């Protein structure tokens, strides 16, 4: 579905379905929420740092959920934090994606015996990509971000925007619309 770019006599033009064009634009401007809960957040910072620069994918961090497309669950999630993360997720505008980074966000990881840790981010959020590791290296986080890009490329975006598309990832705790701020 990727549009092909052709060169014409008066400049270039692209041929392809509208979906593909939109996806091309969306794919290269994935903004992630600057948010981390534990150790993995440091690696998230390093990934945005000079060596594995995520800016080259068009990924920049945003500090507010309203402007973000991707929520990276970086770190251990405690029960106290889970409801706040859900609130953040609900505030993000569609289309939104979730990456579970690190074994804690995948399954609870090391903290299976803990009384205060949620055993996996997918118990309260629909997760798109899981990245293993404790903590994952910046390279693997980059790969995860690229997987999101591939997912976006394949998405029938217009159908989704009109609400005729059912996601294969059901929300484990659906909320009706956006929760009003207190």
């Amino acid at each position, binding site marked *: 579905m990727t549009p092909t770019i052709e060169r014409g006599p008066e400049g270039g033009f692209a041929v392809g379905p509208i979906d593909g064009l939109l996806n091309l634009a969306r794919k290269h401007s994935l903004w992630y929420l600057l948010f981390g809960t534990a150790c993995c957040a440091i690696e998230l910072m390093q990934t945005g740092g000079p060596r594995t620069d995520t800016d080259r994918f068009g990924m920049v961090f945003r500090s507010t959920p309203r402007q973000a497309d991707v929520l990276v669950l970086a770190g251990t999630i405690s029960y106290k934090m889970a409801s706040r993360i859900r609130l953040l997720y609900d505030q993000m505008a569609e289309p939104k994606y979730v990456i579970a980074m690190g074994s804690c966000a995948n399954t609870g990881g090391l903290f299976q015996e803990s009384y205060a840790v949620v055993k*996996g981010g997918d118990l309260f959020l629909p997760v798109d990509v899981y990245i293993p590791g404790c903590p994952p290296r910046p390279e693997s986080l980059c790969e995860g971000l690229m997987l999101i890009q591939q997912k976006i490329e394949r998405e029938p975006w217009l159908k989704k925007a009109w609400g005729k598309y059912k996601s294969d990832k059901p929300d484990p705790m659906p909320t009706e619309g956006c929760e009003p701020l207190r």
Partner: protein
Amino acid sequence: MTTASKEICKKLADKLGVVLDFREEAGDPWALIPAERWKQACLTARDEPELSFNFLRSLCGVDRPDDGVIEVVAHLFSYQHRHALVIHTNTDRSASRLESVSSVWPAAIWHERETFDLFGVDFTGNPDLRRILLPEDWVGHPLLKDYEEPDSYRGIPTTRPGYEKKKFGPQLKKPAPKKPAPKVEKKPEGGEAPKGTAGSAEQK
């Protein structure tokens, strides 16, 4: 270290006018303060020029279900004299309550809040005794040895679906071979809660 601690402990005991129980095992020695003298002892330890313990390193709880008590332990340190002291006190496990030392060292406010949160010790006189680490609607005090995890919290299951539930329940230390005999008598009572007291009864 030990002799120094012993002398410090003796000084403190003299000032308080009681005989303190001084214990030496492996590691650091410590002194046992009667619960009703707790605040007074702390105040003396801070204000006496020979002691001047101005730094509260930590204050925490230790659950001892076999003895039916929750210990409160404070680690004191003095920057002037460079000496340290460890003091313990015992509170009743079923209704544990202790006078707060937050007016002695302001650092104690948060340490006591933490002890209240994890052990349920009620510090009377603490200006801000709320849960600190766990959410307000949490049930129970998790660092007690007989704490049991609920199946879910606010709709989030506490075990991953498809996994076995972790055996996280009572870690009461009981000699295993002794167990069968009293079990028959205890059975009609049932319930999880009295296990702590049952353990202590067995010991005595």
